[in-house]
C-alpha cells in the first residue's frame, strides 16, 4: 500500500494510560484510519543478557522484574522453564499455589488496566467514582497477594521447585473468607459498571473484529496444547515493508503458524469457555468476566491445598539442559525458554511476550476505525511495553 498518498493525513499519538509508552502512528483518510503503526521509544531492556551466566535462582528473581504488573506470570513461567531444564516438578501444593498466584496476578493486572481504561468508556460524571471503587478492589486484591505470595508486586515466594510456603490454617481460612467477600463485591461492582458506560462502548460493540485466536488453557497455561515451535519471531522492521520514517526502538513481533493471532482473555475464553463476542468490546467484556472466573477458581484452589504437605521440591540439579514453559499471563501466551550450561548456569534465555503477538493485531484492528475512537483500540488490548521491550531478536 502506498501510504504516502497525498490525501492521507498522518496523526501521531503519544499514548498515555498504557503500561509504558506508545507512539501510535496513524494514516487516515477522511475520518477513518487506513493504516496504523504501533511504535515505542521505550528503551530496549535486554533481560536475556541480564541473566546470562547467572545462577537460575537469580534469573528467576530478575525475570520477575521484567514487569511490575504481570510479575507473578514471569516468575511462574521462568520457574517452570528452569524446572523443565533441570528435570524436576513441583508437588501438587506447589502447582496449586502457582495457579493461585497467577490468577491473583491476573486480577491485579486486569484491574490496573481498568483503572487506566476508565476515561475511555465510562461516562465522565461517573469516572471518579468508578476509579475509586476499582482501586478499592485492587488494593484488597494486592493484600491477598501479599499474604499468599510474600509481596504484592514481585511475589517472592515463587521459587524453583514450587513455592516457598503456603499459609497456615488460621491465615488460610481468613484468606478464603476474604476472597469470598471480594468475589461478591466484584460482582456488585461489575453490575454497577455496566450502567456507567458511554458512547465509546456503544461504538465498540458495533465493530466486529475476530482474528485467529491463540490460547493454551483457561487458567494456567499448557505447553502441550499449542506447539511452541510454530511461534515465529520476526523483527518489527521485517514485518512491515512500508515503515514510516520515524525514530523508534527496534523490537520483535510474534506470529503463530505465520499468522497474526490474538492472545489473552478473549482468546482463552473463546477456546475454553465457549465465549463468543466478536466485537471489539468483547475484549473488555472478556477481561471483566475473567476477573470473576479467577476469584471463583482461586477460592476453589485454596480449598484444595493440603496443609502439612510439601509445596516445594527442594532439589536443585545443576546440569546442562533445555527447558520451555508456556503460561497464560494476564495478556496471553507467555513463553520462557532456557538453556543451562554444564554448570547449570544460564547460557541462553528467550522470552516470547504476549504483547509481541498483540502489536500486529492492534494495528490490524485499528484499520477502518473512526479517527475519534482510534486511540481506544490499542488500549483495549492492554499492551505492556515493559514486557514488550524486555527481549528482542538481535
Amino acid at each position, binding site marked *: 500500500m502506498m501510504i504516502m498518498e497525498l490525501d492521507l493525513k498522518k496523526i501521531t499519538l503519544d499514548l*498515555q*494510560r*498504557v*503500561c*509504558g*509508552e506508545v507512539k501510535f502512528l496513524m494514516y487516515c483518510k477522511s475520518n477513518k484510519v487506513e493504516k496504523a503503526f504501533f511504535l515505542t*521509544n*521505550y*528503551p*530496549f*531492556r*535486554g533481560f536475556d*543478557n*541480564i*541473566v*546470562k551466566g*547467572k*545462577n537460575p*535462582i*537469580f534469573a528467576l*528473581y*530478575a525475570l520477575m*522484574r*521484567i*514487569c*511490575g*504488573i504481570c*510479575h507473578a506470570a514471569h516468575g511462574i513461567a521462568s520457574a517452570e522453564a528452569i524446572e523443565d531444564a533441570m528435570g524436576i516438578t513441583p508437588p501438587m501444593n506447589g502447582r496449586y499455589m502457582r495457579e493461585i498466584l497467577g490468577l491473583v496476578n491476573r486480577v491485579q493486572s486486569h484491574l*490496573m488496566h481498568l*483503572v*487506566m481504561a476508565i*476515561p475511555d468508556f465510562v461516562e465522565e460524571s461517573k469516572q471518579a467514582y468508578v*476509579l*475509586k471503587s476499582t*482501586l*478499592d478492589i*485492587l*488494593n484488597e486484591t*494486592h493484600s491477598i497477594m501479599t499474604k499468599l505470595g*510474600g*509481596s504484592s*508486586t*514481585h511475589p*517472592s515466594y515463587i521459587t524453583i521447585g514450587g513455592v*516457598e510456603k503456603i499459609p497456615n490454617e488460621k491465615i488460610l481460612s481468613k484468606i478464603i473468607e476474604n476472597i469470598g467477600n471480594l468475589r461478591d463485591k466484584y460482582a456488585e461492582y461489575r453490575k454497577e459498571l455496566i450502567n456507567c458506560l458511554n458512547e465509546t462502548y456503544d461504538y465498540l460493540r458495533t465493530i466486529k473484529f475476530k482474528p485467529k485466536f491463540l490460547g493454551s488453557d483457561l487458567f494456567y497455561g499448557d505447553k502441550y496444547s499449542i506447539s511452541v515451535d510454530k511461534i515465529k519471531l520476526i523483527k518489527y522492521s521485517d514485518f512491515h515493508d512500508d515503515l514510516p520514517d520515524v*525514530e523508534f*526502538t527496534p523490537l520483535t513481533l510474534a506470529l503463530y503458524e505465520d499468522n497474526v493471532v490474538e492472545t489473552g482473555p478473549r482468546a482463552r475464553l473463546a477456546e475454553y469457555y465457549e465465549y463468543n463476542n466478536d466485537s471489539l468490546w468483547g475484549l473488555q467484556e472478556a477481561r471483566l468476566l475473567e476477573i470473576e472466573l479467577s476469584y471463583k477458581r482461586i477460592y476453589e484452589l485454596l480449598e484444595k491445598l493440603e496443609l502439612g504437605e510439601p509445596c516445594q521440591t527442594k532439589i536443585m540439579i545443576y546440569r546442562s539442559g533445555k527447558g520451555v514453559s508456556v503460561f497464560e499471563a494476564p495478556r496471553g501466551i507467555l513463553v520462557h525458554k532456557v538453556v543451562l550450561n554444564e554448570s547449570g548456569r544460564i547460557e541462553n534465555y528467550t522470552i516470547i511476550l504476549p504483547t509481541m503477538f498483540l502489536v500486529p493485531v492492534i494495528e490490524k484492528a485499528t484499520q477502518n476505525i473512526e479517527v475519534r475512537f482510534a486511540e481506544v483500540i490499542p488500549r483495549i488490548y492492554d499492551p505492556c511495553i*515493559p514486557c514488550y*521491550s524486555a527481549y528482542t531478536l*538481535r
Partner: protein
Amino acid sequence: MPSILVLDLGGCEGCIASIMNSYPKLEKKYDLYISYLGNLNLDREFDFAIVSGPVSLVSSEKIDLLKKVRENSKILVAYGSCASVGGIFLYSKGQNCRFASIGKVVDIDYSIPGCPPASRTIINFLNCIEKKGGRFLELFKALTKYQKLSGFDLIDDVVLTGLCVGCGACTLSCPTEALQLVDGVPDLIVEKCIRCGTCIVRCPKFTQNILR
C-alpha cells in the same frame, strides 16, 4: 496544591503502580501528574518529580527527558531500586542496552530504594517533607551520594569490617530472603540478591555512619 510528576524511565512500572494505589490518599493533598491518569504533561513545572526505573544510556531521548525533568522540578526523587541504586539493571550488558541509576545523569534530591517501595512510603515521605525533617529524610538525602548499594556492600562495608552488631535488621528487610544470620552474623546468599539496597539502608550501623 503542590504538584507531583510521576514518571517511569524504563523500569518495570511496579513503582508507578504502587504509587497509583495510593492515589485516593494523594489526590486530597496533591495534584498528581501520571500517565496512568492520562494527564502526563512534561512541559510544566513541578514541586516534586518522582522518577522510577533506570535511565538508558543508549537513548539520548531518555537522557534529555531526565534532564528536562530535573530542570522543571523543585525536588527530584529517585524512587525505587532501579532509579536509586540501579537494581538488577546494573547487570545489563550489550551495546544496545546499558542502564544506570538516575543519579549518575542528573543531581537528585532524595533517593528511596525498594523494589517496589510499598504504597505507604510515598505518603509518609511527602508527610515528612511537609513537616520539614526527621532523620529518615536526612538518610534519603545522604543516599543520593551512592549509585550502588546492595547486600554485597552490606557484607563488605558492615559485616566484614566488624561493625555488625547482629541486630537482624538486614535479614528482616530483604524481599528475597537473600540474607541469613549464621551464628548471629549476616551472610549473603549471593544468587538471591537482586541489589535492591533495602538491607543496607535499614542497617543501623551503615546509616549511623553515613549520617555522621
